[in-house]
């Protein structure tokens, strides 16, 4: 397949056109709109599938990529030049992301036709979903930071709209403004980072940035802010990482994601679990060569990731809301991905992104399936509280099955995808810790978090699906789950892909991927850190809107299974990885075991823990007081009083006295001049003229007889005599 912009762009444009068309027809024919949305996503899915199979099972090596550009607009003229280029950049990572996003999005669309069916704004939901999918795919395909930022923000808008989907609720308004503003804090820094990079590199394109990095442009560059000369590499990477912090809900901007669960559950599945929040990690992976430059950066990222992973997991321990548990687990898992970036586990982080997207989407859909069934007949609302559930296993078999698959995956049970990816992150963290003792801190946080993850996920499953039903009335009203294609099929398909074999390669990998050696996993083969030295040749090229793939030929790389380490070091790494794997397995099973003991056997009383650590319990319930700090502290006590004070100064002081004060000055001058006017000008000069005119008009009045012919005769006679005298 010859990739040109016009062929690839259809992946983005199909959902976008679906959005445009649906925006106009959704009111009249919502069902048609839904059909169009699903069909568009499916079309994108097929196209992405083509790319995926080309790249992953095909002919290309690990560092093969396609890069096409076109001019968006230019400012050439009057002796000045500036061209804004847009383009697509497809490498293996892009191809996998495309396939994952379109696949998950398609399944979620299918599920939504079940979940949103009875909603009054059934069609409109799909309008937003189409726009979101389009934006996400655009982001994945972006070849430069500006278009990345554009789609990034567009996703933010969709997220805003979908969180506020139930706009009758006041809380929805609070939640979506919180989500949008919190992510926007990150975005603003992201933009700053883009600017900083642009003025060093002279381009927004990833390949140019890589080329600039390889030529050492960032090593000694500084930037002056507030008079401090700071290293550019640090500022730029910090600023761009702030974008990740905002979008991927990392500490300290994690507060928005739990509130974002106000939106419909499928939207939580797609946006706030599978794709959009993962885009932050995707950005980090894209900018990874930049992060590597300054030695401060990667430990910082690892620390943030570790803190997030553990902190969110602890909060998830005490949540009673079904979706809130999942929300915190999302934050926690995103923390793992960031931790993976921070410890340099490039492909592990990406693999966790993919696996997490699949099992978390499945978990959310399953949660949706549960919540949709639990209809309270007294309040006419869906029930999300776990204390009112219990024993649902008997009523909904398929959901129960799919959800357990995902729980095993997230908990890190062997042979499930989560084990494969999370284990690799933790293993790499251990490896790093061996070299740099600082990394023990994030690595430890990660391991503790893994334990807690296994525990709280199983706690959720036990509370909801096992044991006795705690709300009998509610339980009795649940209909028995029957297999339906749009409710259960997406769940089961996603559950199928929570199996580890798809990713570990132990079963299928070697046979599918031709370039892979027979020793390693296919994922490892295809996803490697961008080697910046490959991009040196790009620096001076003048790109037109043509295929630039042909200018450079990539040799089919022989995969280096040892990550460029010597044989001895590689052996060491492998042994550390084995330790990590064993530790993970132990941790996962102990978490499951604790949960089993507490909630099935009821041998250990959770109440004891609550009573013993009541301060901590309250802190966890209040989410470590972050919301209070931000909203009550910074905004209500800081920002709003400042605003009110400034507005008061502006209108009440500055405008009232400094500007309007001139009126008083003028008034004094006016009094004097008025007196002068009255006496001299008015009485003598003006009135006198009038009186003299009145005297004259008595004479002239007699000539006006009113007879027109008299006038004519007069005119003729006067004119005649005048002309006579002239001639």
């Amino acid at each position: 397949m010859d990739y040109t912009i016009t062929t690839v762009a259809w992946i983005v444009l199909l959902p976008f056109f679906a959005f445009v068309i649906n925006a106009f027809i959704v009111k009249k024919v919502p069902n048609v709109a839904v059909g169009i949305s699903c069909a568009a996503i499916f079309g994108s899915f097929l196209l992405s599938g083509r790319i995926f199979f080309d790249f992953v099972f095909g002919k290309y090596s690990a560092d093969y990529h396609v890069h096409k550009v076109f001019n968006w607009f230019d400012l050439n003229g009057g002796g000045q030049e500036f061209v804004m280029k847009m383009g697509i950049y497809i490498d293996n990572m892009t191809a996998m992301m495309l396939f994952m996003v379109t696949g998950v999005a398609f399944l979620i669309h299918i599920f939504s036709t079940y979940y949103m069916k009875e909603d009054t704004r059934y069609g409109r939901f799909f309008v937003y979903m189409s726009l979101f999918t389009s934006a996400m795919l655009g982001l994945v395909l972006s070849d430069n930071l500006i278009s990345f930022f554009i789609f990034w923000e567009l996703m933010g808008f969709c997220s805003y709209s979908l969180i506020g989907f139930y706009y009758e609720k006041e809380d929805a308004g609070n939640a979506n403004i919180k989500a949008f503003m919190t992510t926007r804090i990150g975005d603003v820094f992201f933009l700053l980072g883009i600017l900083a990079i642009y003025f060093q590199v002279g381009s927004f394109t990833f390949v140019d940035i890589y080329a600039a990095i390889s030529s050492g442009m960032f090593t000694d560059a500084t930037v002056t802010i507030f008079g401090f000369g700071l290293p550019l590499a640090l500022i730029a990477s910090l600023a761009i990482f702030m974008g990740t912090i905002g979008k991927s809900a990392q500490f300290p901007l994690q507060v928005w994601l739990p509130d974002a669960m106000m939106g419909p559950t499928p939207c939580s599945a797609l946006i706030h679990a599978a794709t959009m929040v993962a885009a932050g990690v995707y950005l980090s992976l894209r900018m990874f060569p930049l992060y590597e430059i300054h030695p401060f950066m990667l430990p910082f990222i690892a620390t943030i990731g570790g803190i997030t992973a553990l902190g969110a997991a602890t909060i998830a321990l005490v949540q009673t809301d079904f979706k809130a548990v999942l929300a915190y687990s999302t934050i926690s898992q995103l923390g793992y991905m960031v931790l993976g970036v921070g410890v340099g586990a490039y492909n592990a982080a990406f693999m966790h992104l993919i696996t997490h997207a699949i099992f978390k989407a499945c978990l959310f859909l399953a949660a949706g399936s549960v919540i949709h069934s639990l209809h309270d007949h007294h309040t006419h609302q869906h029930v999300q509280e776990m204390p009112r559930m219990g024993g649902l296993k008997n009523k909904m078999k398929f959901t129960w099955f799919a959800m357990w698959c995902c729980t095993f995956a997230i908990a890190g049970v062997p042979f499930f995808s989560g084990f494969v990816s999370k284990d690799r992150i933790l293993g790499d963290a251990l490896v790093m810790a061996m070299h740099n003792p600082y990394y023990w801190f994030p690595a430890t946080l990660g391991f503790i978090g893994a334990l807690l993850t296994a525990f709280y996920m199983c706690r959720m499953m036990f509370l909801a699906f096992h044991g006795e039903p705690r709300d009998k009335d509610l339980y009795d009203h649940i209909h028995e789950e029957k297999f339906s294609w749009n409710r259960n099929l997406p769940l089961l398909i996603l559950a199928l892909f929570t199996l580890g074999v798809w990713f570990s390669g132990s079963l299928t990998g070697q046979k599918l991927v031709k370039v892979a050696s027979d020793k390693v996993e296919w994922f490892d083969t295809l996803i490697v850190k961008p080697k910046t030295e490959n991009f040196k040749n790009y620096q001076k090229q003048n790109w037109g809107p043509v295929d630039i793939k042909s200018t450079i030929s990539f040799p089919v790389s022989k995969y280096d299974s040892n990550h460029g380490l010597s044989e001895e070091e590689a052996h060491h790494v492998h042994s550390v990885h084995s330790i990590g794997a064993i530790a993970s397995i132990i941790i996962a099973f102990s978490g499951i075991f604790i949960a089993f003991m507490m909630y099935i056997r009821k041998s250990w009383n959770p109440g004891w823990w609550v009573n013993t650590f009541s301060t901590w319990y309250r802190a966890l319930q209040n989410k470590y007081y972050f919301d209070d700090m931000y909203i009550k502290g910074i905004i209500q006590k800081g920002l709003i009083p400042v605003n009110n004070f400034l507005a008061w100064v502006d209108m009440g002081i500055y405008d009232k006295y400094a500007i309007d004060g001139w009126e008083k000055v003028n008034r004094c001058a006016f009094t004097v001049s008025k007196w002068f006017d009255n006496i001299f000008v008015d009485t003598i000069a003006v009135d006198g003229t009038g009186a003299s005119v009145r005297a004259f008009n008595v004479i002239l009045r007699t000539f006006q007889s009113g007879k027109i012919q008299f006038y004519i005769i007069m005119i003729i006679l006067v004119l005649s005599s005048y002309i006579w005298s002239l001639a």
Partner: protein
Amino acid sequence: MHGTSTLLNWILWTPFIGVVGVILLPYLFSKDKQDNVVRWWSLLNTIGSMILAVVLYMKFDTSVPGMQEQFAVNIAWIKQFNIFYSLGVDGISLPMIMLAALLFFLCILSSWTITKSVKGYFALFLMLQGTVYGVFLALDFFLFYVYWEVMLLPMFFLIGIWGGENREYAAVKFFLYTFFGSILMLVGIIALYYASGKGVDSFNILALSGGKFIDNQVHMFGTVWSFSKVFFWAMFIGFAIKVPVFPFHTWLPHAHVQAPTAVSVILAGVLLKMGTYGFLRIAYPIFPQASVQFADWIAVLGLINVIYGALCAMAQTDVKKLVAYSSVSHMGFVMLGLAAMTVHGMNGAVLQMFNHGTSTAMMFLLIGILYERSHHRWIVRPDGTKGFGGLYTQLPKYSIVFIIAMFASMGLPGLSGFISEALIFLGIYQKYTTITVLALFGLLIGAAYLLWMFKRMFFGEVIEECKSYTDMNAREIFYMAPLCVAVIVFGIYPTPVLDIMKSSVGQLVSLLAQFQ
């Protein structure tokens, strides 16, 4: 330049023909029809204006950097003082003319519900349009000044007669404020007239520009001052009041709040741009060296505008006042772009002028639509109760348009505001990194106050008072639609606008670069 092209004359005088028509035509009809005759006539007139603007756009040669020769008009007006009636159009003024043509057309539509002294309103409104065109087309400094001043007259009456309850105060304030600036500008004009030797070109903006007055000096208050510095500041204050730049901004909230909807739209959409247009057309080309020297000041003032406007906007409880302060904030971005004096920054500034014209016009039109239903504009009333609530449920179409306007205003990518703001940031980052960092927070606060307003007005249960409101009718949708389309299309594909301006702006940037 010797030209007798008729197109610019037509553009300039069509609104005045409209004024004559508004005054005379109603006499042909019976009393009950007169109002509608006036409305339709004004509408036709503005449509004609728009057609002419489109013709101008079609005939416009985007590759030429300076004034377009094929449209030149240059006729002696007052020969004794070498004052010419000379018009011209280049890439900076054409977007403004097209914006004005569009906005006046839409505003006529939105003024359909005016019932108080219809004839006077529309006559003044068309007159305002003519003067706005005059300012954007004039190439003679004196002519420019004449239109600049005459523009105050219709504005004064439009605010003072058709405004809100405190209208006289606002009108007088607007008038005196702007007049103060104009007087300083007049002093500058006269000084330039003498400094350039009272010759044929002494009022010709094009001939004056290019940095001719570096060595001139002026004696004032017993000291010798640099001519270009002194009169750069004179011009600066004249234009800054119009923009409005802090600390000359306090007329804006009053004028906006008191003015009728359409006038607010024109005020925010077109008149504010006249200030920045003045910088681009007059202050920068005539005093390039002073401009470069004082660029830091402009940047700082722009930053203050951005942050201060945004913070003040956040405290407002009157939605129109909020949007008025947001205008202050957004015009600060334009000032930042101007201060950058790079190709990105200047292009971004001109584009922001255009985009702010469309997005703020949308906001004001929307507020006007709401005001027609509610007759108040409180987000939160002084007694603490909600002024609006649950409008999203009550007015779905309105809300969608409002969302588009709001996000365009806060610079969401894909809508028009983003490109201009991004270009402005690209422009200023290198020269004023710290200011960029701070101005980025303006972007943040900008999102905050708009979203907060939206949340308070649109989310939640419908409050009792709002239950009687009806959604947008066909006329309102009709006049919002072009702006929605413009906002979206220029957000995705800004080339049509950028193509017009980039040569002219690039030329100006090159001129300034000689003095850096």
